[in-house]
């Protein structure tokens, strides 16, 4: 009687054999004690191997790993996907903004932020529909500015030899541009020069990016980067975004007691 070769036996035990082969082997095993013992031995070896002893790690192991890891991480990772991650909800946010901004924007007409309002006024403000609407505007436009800033930062740091593929950036610039136009229009109508001016400065850069070839030569990329730089757009987006976040926090914390 021919016995089953070891490799085939292992394949069957590991469930890696073709169904037909497996059926043939099982038929043989039914009538061959020697091969049955061989198969059982393989199974026992495999069971024994599972008994390996991985040292225990405590519940705070992840925190220890992070403590060692964190100082080794690059200080400011720029992830393409961070801004290449625009989502359809931006358009929805724009629609919401359009609906509410006309009531709101007087607060963003260029006056310095008032982050020290007396808490006595807070309840009144937090329940005031204008306050709620302002939060919506701050969240929507603030998020738009943050995405735009990340996009421009990434573009400003893009380096490559020869030509640079900006196809992904263009796709996202197109989305940012659509939303940018919506926001600018609604904020213009509501007389909000600070935000609408910044949106107005951002728009030509996004437009240029959208209309550029998908591959830029190194000089073309440098020229685009220089135009972003000379308008201090990244700086303006960062500062305005920070102001908006501060304002959001004020509104949020002020609103907490009533929520």
């Amino acid at each position: 009687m021919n016995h089953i070769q070891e490799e085939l036996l292992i394949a069957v035990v590991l469930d890696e054999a073709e169904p037909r082969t497996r059926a043939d082997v099982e038929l043989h095993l039914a009538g061959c004690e020697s091969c049955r013992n061989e198969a059982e031995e393989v199974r026992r070896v495999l069971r024994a191997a599972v008994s390996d002893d991985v040292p225990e790690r405590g519940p705070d192991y992840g925190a220890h790993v992070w403590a060692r890891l964190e100082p080794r991480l690059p200080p400011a990772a720029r992830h393409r996907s961070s801004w290449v991650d625009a989502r359809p909800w931006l358009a929805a946010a724009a629609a919401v903004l359009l609906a509410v901004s006309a009531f709101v924007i007087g607060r963003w007409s260029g006056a310095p932020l008032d982050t020290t309002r007396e808490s006595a006024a807070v309840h009144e403000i937090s329940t005031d529909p204008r306050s709620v609407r302002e939060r919506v505007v701050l969240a929507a436009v603030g998020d738009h500015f943050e995405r735009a800033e990340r996009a421009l930062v990434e573009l400003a740091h893009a380096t490559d030899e020869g030509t640079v593929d900006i196809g992904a950036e263009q796709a996202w610039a197109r989305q940012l541009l659509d939303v940018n136009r919506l926001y600018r229009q609604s904020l213009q109508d509501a007389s909000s020069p600070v935000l609408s001016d910044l949106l107005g400065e951002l728009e030509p850069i996004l437009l240029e990016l959208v209309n550029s070839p998908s591959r830029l030569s190194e000089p073309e990329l440098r020229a685009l980067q220089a135009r972003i730089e000379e308008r201090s757009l990244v700086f303006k987006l960062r500062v305005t975004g920070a102001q908006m976040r501060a304002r959001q926090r004020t509104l949020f914390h002020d609103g907490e007691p009533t929520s």
Partner: protein
Amino acid sequence: MRFFPGPNGGCRLPSNLLIVNEADAAILTRAKSGNREAFRTIVERHSAGVFRVAYRLTRSEQDAEDVVQETFLKAYAELRSFEGRAALGTWLHRIAANCAIDLIRRRPAVAGEPVDAEPAIMRVASASPGPDRQAAGREMREHVEAALADLTPLERAAFTLRHLEEQSIEEICRVLGQSPSATRHSIFRAVAKMRRSLAPLVGVQP
């Protein structure tokens, strides 16, 4: 054959993959946008699993800890290219496996300890209670450790990922950069070697 080391000498990252479970999805999105706290959550959530894979491949706590660090550094650098077609944990385990295999190949070979041929399994199966059984269990684990240490890095990786980590052949292929056929042969060779080492302990009476 394209095998473990990456183009820059570091561990090669697996190609990007399949599904993300819902618990990881939201945090992953934030981490990909550069949010460190989100990445911290990922690290804290997956460290133990990454350590387990690393330890099973390196058989050394210190090496496994190094692999854990290397894995998350690589993951952080490559997070944006992770397309979410694999579970995040699976992706991290693949990175860990590659890092571990690189480390194994870099470190000098260490002569294995001689294996006691006395059939420990018989003692495990004996009627002796308590300490004897525990000692036999420890001894069996030592034999298993020795048997695993006798495998080549490729065999150990293939065997560990398939049998202990229960990864599919396709997943292991991606980690090892091998064809399915070559991966299966690595696993079969590993099992055959393990069998030769452990058969005296698990022997089946005819």
